[in-house]
């Protein structure tokens, strides 16, 4: 099995044995470490703060006393949120929408990119142009809404999956990757009797696991985080993904107390409930990320250098 590892380039400068590091280099390392530590602290603080809030009492959060450690430690908020049926309904929706949309997106993006990677294909320029055109010009919100509505996609997963099925950026990255594969392999496959689909399925895709993994992650994360399409095309709360639920929870409570809403609206959602919902919503991504982030790094450089 041939594996392509594009991360093989070592970016750590190697030191010849026996030569002592210069003073300047040591200072550089110290400064570097300090700056990076600061970056880590700045990045981690909000996360730890939210985590601490999620275990704290509402009163402590509102009076601004919760920083890195929970005050008034309790897990009743977790129990309260996790027994909220709408939260889980929306959570399930997020999972379903993400899986379906990612599968559809991968299928369409892969076949489109493979076609575009064939340099001798007639009309290839037009096909690329059609895709790239949508990067710069879009139909606009209302025309899109009218289109999706009149196709009868509203209130179904297809309203989310189909309009966002092809991300042009991902498409171009994949095309560049396919172009980098040796043509000889495919010629060999053709000689051995494989048709186009067979070549794609049995030869090209097995060699493209790196790019496939990256694309799956790109799509899955963006579908997991997305809320606008669902918000626009779903008319009932039990169809919403958990991101819309979360957004409403946070925005609703900040505004209810700050813009002078009418009395009936002034029902603030507890700050601890917000925190717990944030933790539970981001948890899957947080848990998976450390194991897959190398694909993200490789994904960014994929196709950057053409072999």
């Amino acid at each position, binding site marked *: 099995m041939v594996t392509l590892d594009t991360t093989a380039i070592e970016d750590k400068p190697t030191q010849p044995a026996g030569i002592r590091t210069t003073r300047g280099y040591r200072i550089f390392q110290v400064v570097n470490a300090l700056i990076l530590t600061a970056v880590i602290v700045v990045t981690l603080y909000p996360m730890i703060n939210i985590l601490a809030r999620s275990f704290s009492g509402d009163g402590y959060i509102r009076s601004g006393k919760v920083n890195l450690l929970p005050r008034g430690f309790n897990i009743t908020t977790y129990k309260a949120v996790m027994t909220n049926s709408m939260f889980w309904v929306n959570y399930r929706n997020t999972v379903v929408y993400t899986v379906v949309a990612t599968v559809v997106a991968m299928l369409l993006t892969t076949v489109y990119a493979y076609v575009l990677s064939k340099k001798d294909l007639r009309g290839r320029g037009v096909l690329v142009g059609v895709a790239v055109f949508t990067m710069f010009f879009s139909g606009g919100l*209302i025309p899109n809404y009218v289109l999706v509505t009149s196709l009868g996609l509203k209130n179904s997963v297809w309203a989310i999956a189909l309009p966002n099925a092809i991300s042009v950026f991902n498409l171009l990255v994949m095309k560049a990757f396919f172009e980098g594969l040796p043509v000889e392999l495919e010629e060999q496959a053709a000689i051995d009797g494989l048709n186009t689909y067979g070549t794609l399925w049995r030869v090209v895709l097995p060699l493209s696991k790196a790019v496939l993994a990256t694309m799956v992650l790109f799509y899955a994360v963006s579908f997991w985080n997305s809320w606008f399409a669902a918000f626009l095309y779903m008319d*009932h709360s039990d169809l919403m993904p958990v991101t819309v639920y979360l957004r409403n929870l946070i925005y609703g*409570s900040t505004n209810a107390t700050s813009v002078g809403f009418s009395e009936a609206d002034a029902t603030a959602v507890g700050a601890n409930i917000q925190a717990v919902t944030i933790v539970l919503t981001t948890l899957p991504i947080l848990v998976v990320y450390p194991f897959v982030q190398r694909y993200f790094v490789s994904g960014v450089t994929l196709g950057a250098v053409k072999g």
Partner: protein
Amino acid sequence: MNNISRRSMLVSLGATLGAASLGLAGCSSDGGSDDDKGADLSKNRTDAMDKFGVNEQFKASKPVAFTTLLNDNPGYPEKANWLFWTELAKRTNVTLKPTVVPLSDYENKRSVIIGGGDAPLLLPKTYPGQEAAFVSSGAILAVSDYVDLMPNFKDKLAKWNLQGDLDTVLQDDGKYYVLPGLHEDVWIDYSFAIRTDVLDELGLQIPKTLDELYSVLKAMKAAHPDSYPMTDRWSQPTPGGAMLQTFGQAFGAGYGGGWGYANAAYDSASDKFVLTGAMDQYKAMIAYAQKLVAEKLLDPESFTQTDDQANAKFTSGKSFVISTNAQELVNTYRPGLAKSVPSAKVVKIPVPTGPAGEVKVGLRLENGLMISKKARNSADFVAMMQFVDWLFYSDDGQIFAKWGVEGVTYTRDASGNFHLTNDVDYVGLNPTATKKLNVDFGFSNGNFAYGGSTQLLESTFSQEEKDFQKVMTARKTLPVPPPHPLNADEQEQFSLYEAPLKDYVQQQTLKFILGDRPLSEWDAFKGELKGKNGDQYLSLLNGAYDRFKKAKTGGDKS
């Protein structure tokens, strides 16, 4: 900022598209039942009541369903099994079919679905003024043509003398397109929370006027020289949102500064609109706030900090005065202080008065309802208007929407006071109960329950809030500015001037208050407002006002 521009983009998109579709409709030959007042309603009376009068129970002759948009509040997310829905169907034969939209982005979706021609029949939670963007699209019904179908609405309008308030939502064609919620009296909720234990310690009284507030702060500062006696919140995105509104109104600068700030205020002496930011009263407001900052009585961070930061300063006992409303006093300040300063006592004081005297300003209109134009052609149109009139404007309908079902969610005693039943809670009135009026039953829902008589409004207030309201009710309500409906071109021009002018005034207000700019430059500042199209802005409004006056006198003669 980003948000606003996106919203306004949506709105204008919606308007453009709607206008296009209106043009198309004009070409088609469906006979056009457009706009003619008193038009033939004989085809639209299916299921309606033959006679429907004030405080009569509406009931459709057979079950009907109307679609509605629903603003979904995360505090009480929509449930299909709410008693509100079932009881409503039982009483009126009407089933509401909601399109549920998260509160966070309600206005965005409303714009898109109106623009996309996909709007439900009823569009609640529309604040007066928001409907203007949709008028030219032709997608919204001119409800003023059909108020004859709404006896309760007309009754309240006459009884509470609301015509002047209602005139503020008139459009250039002399019609209005939103059915606003109607209040019997101006409802003031925002004032200052003050630590009475600190007052007692220093032998001070609760300040009644701005001058007294100044002396109180001064005395507090003398006793606690290291602290700022007052810190403030509600400064994002509008600096001094609640505080400058209160100060400005006390000095008589229109609706005040902060949240209340409007570029134009009506000057009754000259019968013209003037720039609020150039008024002497506005200058007096700035001078007052600037004095507080300069003498270190008011925390200068008040205008930039987040609510959380301000709350933390107040609840940790570092400051003793802060802006409040009834909810925040009970939900934030008291619980917070109880943890850090157990001996603290805090109350919401009656709004301090200023040179303007014992007055209050404000509109008695609340957010309300738009109705889709397509409803007009439905056979059930009359029934729908009667239903809307009953639910939103009849006494029974308002009590039902707010309190629910007698014997199930509430009881009334001999003197007419409302009490929740044992197992039902609302805004902490019945803290031991396990169910909530809005969460579990769907009543007191912001989409359907608002407005009404002062008695109904205050029925959910605590005793101390009722005492506060008693003081406020006794104050005189100033008349609202006269109407000055703009036509479509003017509206466009108006919105071009509006935001830059407002931003500039608020920015400079802040500079004056914080001492970054001396008040001696006031005249220069007034000159700068001209550079921001201040004069053109005023002539637009005054022109529209003159036109309105002429049309009115002309209309009266004919």
